[in-house]
């Protein structure tokens, strides 16, 4: 029993964080917003980091890592508000293909020539799919009507929902950091607005929500990786906790920014819109709530203090 990441996992996550911080800042989001929202150079950078092959078995040229590492990187993608379809391709599509034993074309995923947009019946629209375009509130999200046959495999749904939850924790972290930075520099009544308890306490509440959503996400990643019978419950728990934390943080962050928060000029809205989008993707709140409700009240899952890791 050791509820910690390994040094290797933390090093990997921080290297991805540093890379994205350096190459994928808000100015890049604005450029993508104006010039068409995908950039082969960004994708190539992710490929060169080895991220497309993170979960691809070593025999197919990948790194052969697991869902815990992928969830950590997905959180970094959320923090950077990454637009490229890395998470759906490499952390949802790839592990689903591997789980089904379908290894064809994974070399092309590793090399970046091929992206995956796995269609599941839970999603009425497909991110980075090839069908008719549908406009999302998130300007960097490419939604399409579903044209190919959609799967109803619960494992695919769990992978998608887990990675959404992981991204939402990173998005929430980023929004909280932006709000804190703004509260330090914006002065009113002769002092930084962040000195007022009215703001401090709201931001502290976001911190509580986000920090207690994270271990739920890591627990879900571990459960899905290990194939626990209860993995679906843990994934839904994670999606609920991460969604609620991100929505609270989004609303608090815009409030802290005041009128500036309502402008296009402040960066916050990119992350906020991503949070809105992911909150409903791969199973909305009602769907995941129902799965937790079934397990907890339905009696199919053992609860109580002795069942922390059931």
């Amino acid at each position, binding site marked *: 029993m050791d509820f*910690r990441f390994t040094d290797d996992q933390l090093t990997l996550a921080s290297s991805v964080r540093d890379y994205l911080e350096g190459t994928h800042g808000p100015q890049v989001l604005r450029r993508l917003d104006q010039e068409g929202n995908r950039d082969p150079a960004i994708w190539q950078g992710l490929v060169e980091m080895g991220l497309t092959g993170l979960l691809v078995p070593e025999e197919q040229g990948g790194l052969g890592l697991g869902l815990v590492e992928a969830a950590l990187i997905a959180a970094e993608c959320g923090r950077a508000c990454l637009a490229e379809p890395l998470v759906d391709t490499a952390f949802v599509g790839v592990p689903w293909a591997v789980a089904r034993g379908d290894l064809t074309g994974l070399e092309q995923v590793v090399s970046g020539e091929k992206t995956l947009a796995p269609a599941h019946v839970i999603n009425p629209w497909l991110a980075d799919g090839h069908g008719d375009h549908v406009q999302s509130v998130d300007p960097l999200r490419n939604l399409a009507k579903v044209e190919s046959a959609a799967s109803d495999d619960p494992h695919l749904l769990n992978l998608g929902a887990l990675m959404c939850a992981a991204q939402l924790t990173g998005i929430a972290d980023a929004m909280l950091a932006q709000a804190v930075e703004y509260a330090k520099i914006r002065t009113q009544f002769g002092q930084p607005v962040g000195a007022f308890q009215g703001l401090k306490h709201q931001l*502290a509440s976001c911190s509580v929500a986000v920090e207690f959503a994270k*271990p739920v996400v890591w*627990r879900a990643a571990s459960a899905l990786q*290990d194939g626990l019978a209860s993995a679906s419950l843990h994934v839904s728990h994670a999606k609920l906790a991460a969604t609620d934390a991100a929505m609270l943080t989004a609303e608090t962050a815009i409030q802290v920014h005041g009128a500036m928060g309502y402008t296009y000029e402040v960066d916050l809205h990119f992350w906020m819109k991503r949070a809105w989008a992911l909150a409903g993707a791969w199973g909305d709140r009602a769907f995941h709530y129902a799965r937790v*409700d079934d397990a*907890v009240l339905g009696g199919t899952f053992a*609860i*109580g203090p002795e069942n922390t*890791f059931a």
Partner: protein
Amino acid sequence: MNLTYTPEQQAFRAEVRGWMEANVPKEPLVTLECREGYDAHVEWERKLASGNWGMVTWPEEFGGRGLDLIEWLIFEEEYFRAGGPNRANQNGIFLLGPTIMEFGTPEQKARFLPPMARGEEIWAQAWSEPGAGSDMAAIQSKAVRDGDHYVITGQKTWSSRAAFADWGFGIFRTDPESKRHKGLTFILFDINSPGITRRPIRQLHGDTGFAELFFDEVRVPVENCLAGEGQGWNVAMATAGFERGLMLRSPGRFQATAKRLVELYREHADRASPAAREAVVQAWGAAQAYAYNTYAVASKIMAGGKIGAEASLNKIFWSELDRTMHRTAMQLLGAAAELKRFDDGRINQWLEGYMFSLSGPIYAGSNEVQRNIIAERLLGLPRIGNG
């Protein structure tokens, strides 16, 4: 990340479960907040000690089993699974004990820890004063050095367990010229010393859980000072860290409450609102989240890490969760919520629990203070207007 127990840990769980099933009182004890209940709870502390369960993480020489924090969590889970009573000596074993372990001299450890583990000396805390609640640095009670003794004069209030306990600990101003956080000293005192008057305070439920302590030239030997004169604030902050961060409220307590809440929901499902139903499900989720986080903190400490200002996150989380769970129970009970005893004679534990849960966001540093700590020390917001 390895979220499975070793065979040794599973065997330990089985051992705890066996002992608890055989020994935990079948009927809930009378509340700790009255003489009769206090005595019953102290007797239970001694029963626990007879099984060598007083404080499992302490070294054997101090009455423990030398176990690690994961094993402590397993112990706590089984303790609450079995419905174990509240710990009369929680101020000692969970707060002062770890503080003595960190700051105490070998003599202090040998003197104070074993009787604490055996439940022979029950501890009260004496932090607050009438003018120093959330603002603890405003403490005025004085301890003046006189040869081998400190002479204490002043007043403490809202002191948990002080109505009946044997010993107390708190911080006192040893430097009369000092202000705020400086010049304070952490002192342990025998509550039955000449010059101490204790006046139990009647709490909102009618019982006497805490007390005022009046000190009139009370002589305390200097060897009862912890970590040296003038170090009181730092020692108190470490104690508060244990209190808020890890030990005071282990997750098993809230997981057990969440489970009972699910059972209560099932009894009242036909008339419960959808909102109450969702609150029940969310209570399970939040208690689990608290457990995962506690395992993460324990793992970190076992690997040599420390718990800092993030202790404030924990304190807010468990105290507000506890209040929410009990509020939900009151909603589920409906008209019966106000009954002190149900028609079948059972005590309305949910009502008692709800009243107690209202104190959670206040004691151990109010949640407003905790939110300031998070904002300033974790998020880095400016410290203005808080002294």
